[in-house]
């Protein structure tokens, strides 16, 4: 599955960058993420819980900031396993910032998500169904964080 889009954030690029490269800051903005543990300055782990009808599953993941080059190159590789089917999900995410003014930034992202194993039977559908709303929530959260008074 491929995802591509832009998010406009009314904040300077430096401030946006600081949030998106901080695993705890970013994870706090992603719906459903819990148990976040930072392993080093580029690696963190966590889990996401989701249900589809009668199926409840946890998805444990590890995220690595593979490339950090302000402002236009952030590459994140995520790998995880779900608790129900033990399938493997691999995501490669590329993002970059461009200033649209002193106080506003556009975040452009492109992601490829691959599911290997039984989870592929329903996982793609769930990812597609939730991705748009998750990105919407992340956008809202980032804006709120960056707009909040220091």
């Amino acid at each position, binding site marked *: 599955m*491929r995802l591509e889009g832009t998010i406009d954030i009314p904040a300077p690029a430096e401030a946006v960058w600081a949030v998106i490269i901080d695993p705890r800051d970013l994870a706090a903005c992603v719906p459903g993420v819990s148990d976040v543990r930072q392993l080093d300055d580029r690696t963190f782990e966590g889990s996401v819980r989701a249900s589809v009808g009668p199926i409840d599953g946890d998805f444990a993941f590890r995220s690595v900031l593979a490339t950090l080059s302000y402002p236009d190159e952030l590459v994140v590789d995520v790998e995880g396993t779900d608790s129900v089917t033990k399938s493997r999900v691999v995501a490669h995410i590329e993002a970059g910032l461009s200033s649209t003014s002193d106080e506003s930034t556009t975040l452009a992202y492109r992601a490829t998500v691959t599911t290997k194993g*039984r989870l592929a*039977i329903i996982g*793609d559908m769930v990812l597609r169904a939730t991705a*748009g709303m998750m990105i919407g929530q992340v956008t809202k959260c980032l804006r709120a964080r960056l707009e909040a008074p220091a």
Partner: protein
Amino acid sequence: MTSTRGDRPATDVDVAVVGGGTAGCVVAARLSEDPARRVLLLEEGPDPQPIPPIVSDPKRQSELILESPYVRMYDVERPDGSSFPLLSGRIMGGGSSINNLAVVRPMRADFDAWSTFGGDGWSYDALLPLLRAIEDDPDFGDDPIHGSGGPLHLERSYRLDETVDPPVRALIAAAGDAGLPPCHDLNVPDPIGVCASPYNIVDGRRQSTAVAYLEPARGRPNLTIHADATVVRVLVDDGRACGVEVRDPDGRTTTIGARQVVVAGGVFHSPELLIRSGIGPSDELTAHGIAPRVVREGVGRGYQDHAVVYVTFQGTTELREDYVIPKVRLIAKSHPDRATPDLHVFMQPSIRMEGLPPLLPVSVRLLEHRATGRVRLASADPGELPIVEPALLQHPGDVEAMAGGIAFVRELVRHPALAEFYGDLVNPEPDADADMLEHILTSYISYYHGVGTCRIGAADDPLAVVDAGLRVYGVDGLWVADASVLPTVPHANTNLAAIMVGELGARAVAAA
């Protein structure tokens, strides 16, 4: 005789049935009704006895599909390089042991289409007595188009006229206002509307063909069942099938003589076995260094299936786990001008994730396939799965029909009754038609209803593999009897059609 697993049969037989899937169990059970006929059923998957609860208990369907060892996945690619799986059952009973248990007859239009390939014997009127003989339908047993006392028991756990479930009532109201009435019997020749789904369940137990057909036959001394047995190839001598070469789990091969061979490996493995046996398209035989016995260009070609696309709405309320599915399905047309309903629409269970409102997917399932795909060998080694190129949504007419179906669903959920449950469209983004087209072409999956890779047809039809009586062209004593012989995908789930083909195969072999 009880089943043995992976052992070498010691004696030659009258009929070797290759594949204990949906149709193969039917063929073996029917042919062994004659005690004078020695029948051997060979299944590559296991034959666990008793059948494990994860298979027999319909309530564990999700677990069966997602976690059990009895499901085989075939990764296939969309043109954009993304992939999705096709599935088959790798256990005695095949697809009928892992499917969602729906018993859905092909529509009259399907029999009409099949008649153009197979003649009058494939017409609705000709096959109605067989459809009746297969089933035991207590809800409609007295109806002239239904049967009672057949091996396959049907039950409808849900009656539309008794429903108190608000979402189902809402669906009935919305569909009714769209001209789609409640349809109490899904198995009429021309069904349309909100239909209560019939299932093959008895006392809470799945009635796969391993149960409904094979179980009563297991005690017959003339029936031998070998599970965990891979058939490497059909042996052909002087234009006549004469047996099979079988490999056990330890890699030992043995040869079994048979007067007649019935291939029932399913839509992926029947063509694979024929090709490995030297019966197939010249390019495949050449590519894999297989000595040609009979060149039949249609082997593996002609694959058809049903494409499925999900659209997801924001839920306005939390819904119960059992929601609409599997109680009812909507049979509809992608466009009012269509002669035959070409859609199954399922209101799917909700998706829930912390921090997000409930999401309500609706699946749109296109019951026609204008393009044709192909099954090819990955290698001549039977241990390697074949390559499947399903060609779903590769014809503009299919894409147009799917888009029409999605537009119909978007309109349907705006009906005030359904709008109590369904909010805004969230996937795909509702902004532009181009987004919807991209969504269709990059997210479609399969309904797991493949057919057509060994299809019936006249002798002068270059892509026909078997004749109307399922006999393989060019080889005496060899039949194919499974859903792979169906020349077009029916407007229905394919399990019952596969059972019907199994019955036809058994009759053809018995009459030979």
